């Protein structure tokens, strides 16, 4: 049994966080979230229109037991918009969790570190548990920890790209220096990507596209849950050290050579 993950005061029963985007329909989304065993799910905000009321996820999400809902600030172009989005999200969830994301460039969706930092300061003061989506920058991660963020969520590679973990060494440095949970968010494509992140000592992973866009999202959610479990268990078990050269596992005594047969 692996150690439990705690974010601020909240113990979470799974180290796999999932999103709610890109699912073909709401029923598949609900089944998939349940299959994943996740305890934390992200959701976006969208302008209400009566013709799109069927897309409202409030009802389906409130039926999930033991799952915390974390609104994101997607669509915010700057700190001010992100703070407003967070406040709107909290009105719906009545929960302090907020995924702070500010990515003004639609081509790469990379986070704006400066606006994110400014928004985080305000939201922490407002009592939010701020979980910022950030570039894999160890200095920024530490600064966000210092101002009271609940976690940091460095990207593995661009959102929805499925490029896996392209910034492995930077994430390793963040994990080494961080006293708050580190969550790899974005870019993960396969359960082995998730396992690799967990083996590095990351505290959790957030996976949306890789599950929702799979041929069978429910089955993929289960595969991811296993990958995350395996990776965490391996981290806690302590991986062997690497060697540049072979190190034999069997005796090399030349008992076959030169002896009489």
């Amino acid at each position: 049994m692996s150690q439990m993950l705690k974010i601020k005061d909240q113990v979470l029963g799974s180290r796999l966080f999932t999103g709610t985007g890109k699912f073909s329909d709401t029923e598949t989304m609900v089944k998939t979230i349940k299959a994943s065993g996740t305890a934390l799910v992200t959701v976006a905000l969208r302008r209400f229109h009566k013709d799109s009321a069927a897309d409202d996820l409030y009802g389906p999400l409130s039926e999930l037991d033991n799952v915390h809902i974390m609104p994101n600030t997607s669509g915010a172009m700057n700190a001010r918009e992100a703070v407003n989005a967070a406040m709107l999200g909290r009105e719906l969830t009545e929960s302090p969790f907020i995924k702070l994301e500010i990515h003004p460039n639609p081509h790469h969706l990379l986070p704006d570190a400066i606006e994110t930092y400014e928004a985080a300061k305000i939201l922490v003061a407002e009592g939010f548990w701020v979980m910022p989506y950030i570039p894999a920058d160890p200095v920024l991660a530490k600064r966000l920890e210092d101002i009271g963020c609940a976690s940091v969520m460095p990207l593995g590679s661009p959102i929805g790209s499925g490029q896996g973990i392209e910034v492995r060494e930077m994430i390793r440095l963040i994990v080494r220096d961080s006293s708050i949970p580190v969550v790899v968010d974005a870019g993960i494509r396969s359960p082995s990507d998730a396992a690799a992140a967990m083996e590095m000592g990351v505290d959790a992973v957030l996976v949306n596209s890789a599950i929702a866009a799979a041929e069978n999202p429910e089955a993929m959610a289960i595969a991811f849950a296993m990958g995350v479990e395996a990776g965490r268990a391996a981290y806690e078990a302590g991986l062997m050290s690497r060697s540049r050269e072979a190190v034999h596992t069997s005796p090399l005594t030349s008992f076959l050579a030169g002896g009489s047969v």
Partner: protein
Amino acid sequence: MQLNVNGEIHKHQGDGSLISLLKEMCARPERTAVMVNGKVVKRVDWDGVQLKDLDDVDVVMFAGGG
């Protein structure tokens, strides 16, 4: 009364209260969050909100996202 609701012109026929606007939009109050003129209005304060001509109102709901 003319309002700017979610970025579009909206001819409001009700009594100008926030609650009547939400009703007019067929929005379920418990599933929406509201901002008036760029400021989030907490649910507990909705009852007292009286809108004015040309106010900007944003009404949002949950949607899928990562």
